[in-house]
C-alpha cells in the first residue's frame, strides 16, 4: 500500500460498520416511534448510511480503475514539480 492507495478492505469494514449503526437507528425508530429515536434516525441515521454507501462506491470505483491500470498501487508517486517560489523584490 502506497500513499496514493486506499486500503480497500479496511474501507469496506468501515462502510459495513457505519451501515450497521445506521440500520440500528432506523430499526429503533421504526419500533419505538418516539421523538428521540425518530429524529436520530432521520438525521444521524441518514448521515451514517450515506457515508457508508459513499465509502463503498469509492472503493468500487477505485478498484475498477486499479483493475484497468489507471492506478497502480505499487508505483511510486511521480515526483512533484518544484514549487515556484515567488520573490517580492521589496522584501529581502
Amino acid at each position, binding site marked *: 500500500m502506497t500513499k496514493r492507495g486506499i486500503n480497500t*478492505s479496511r474501507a469496506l469494514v468501515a462502510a459495513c460498520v457505519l451501515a450497521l449503526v445506521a440500520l440500528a437507528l432506523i430499526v429503533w425508530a421504526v419500533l419505538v416511534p418516539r421523538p428521540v429515536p425518530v429524529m436520530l434516525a432521520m438525521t444521524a441515521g441518514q448521515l451514517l448510511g450515506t457515508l457508508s454507501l459513499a465509502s463503498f462506491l469509492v472503493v468500487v470505483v477505485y478498484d475498477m480503475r486499479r483493475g484497468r491500470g489507471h492506478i497502480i498501487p505499487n508505483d511510486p508517486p511521480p515526483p512533484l514539480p518544484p514549487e515556484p517560489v515567488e520573490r517580492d523584490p521589496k522584501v529581502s
Partner: protein
Amino acid sequence: MLGAPFPVDALTSIALFCAAGAALIVVTYLVRRPPLVHATKVWLLMGLGVLPIGAAMTGNVAGYEHMKMRHFCGSCHVMGPYESECENLESHSLASRHARNKLFGNENCYACHSDYGMFGTVTTKMGGMGHVWRYYTEYRDVPLEESAKTIHLRAPFPNDNCMQCHSTELDVWNNVPDHKSSLADVRAGRLSCASGGCHGFAHPFTKPDGGAP
C-alpha cells in the same frame, strides 16, 4: 397532509425487512471477508446500498406519519394533559372537538399547529426540533402544574390555520352575526377565532380564566 395516506404498518414491515436483509449481508461479509470479486460487489451493493436505502425511505415515511399523531406529541410529559384532554369525550374544548373525526382526529395537534404554506412541512419540522431541544434542556423535569402555566406559543395562533379548513366563504358560516360583523378582522388575523368571547381558548385548562366563551 391529513389522514394516513401511507399504511404505517406496511411501511414498518418493509423497513424491518430491508434492514434485516441488509444486516444479514453486511454481517456475513464481516465474518467471511471474501475477496472483492464481482459477486462480492453486487452483494455489498445490496447490503450497503439498495436495502438500506429501502429501509431509510420507508422508515422515514413511517416516521413522518408517526410524527403527526397526537400520541407522538404526548410522548413528552408536558404535552400529556393536552393529549388526554383531547381524548376525553366529555370535554368541549375546541382542541378536543377536533379530535373525533376519522380524517385527522388522531392527528389533531398537527392539523391545527402545523404551518401551512409552501415550506410548511419544513418549518413545522424545524420548529418541532426546537421544541424537542427545549424539552430536553429545560422542561424535562418541570412538573405539570408549573409547565401548564409557563408553556406558551412562540407567536399568536394564526387564524389562517383555522381557515385552512374553515374557509369563511360559506353562507352558513357567514350568516352567523358575529362572523358577519367581524369578517374583515377575522380574515386579517386581527381578531383571533380562538379567544374568550369567540370560540374560547383551544386548551382552556391552561388559561387562568378558563377561556369560557
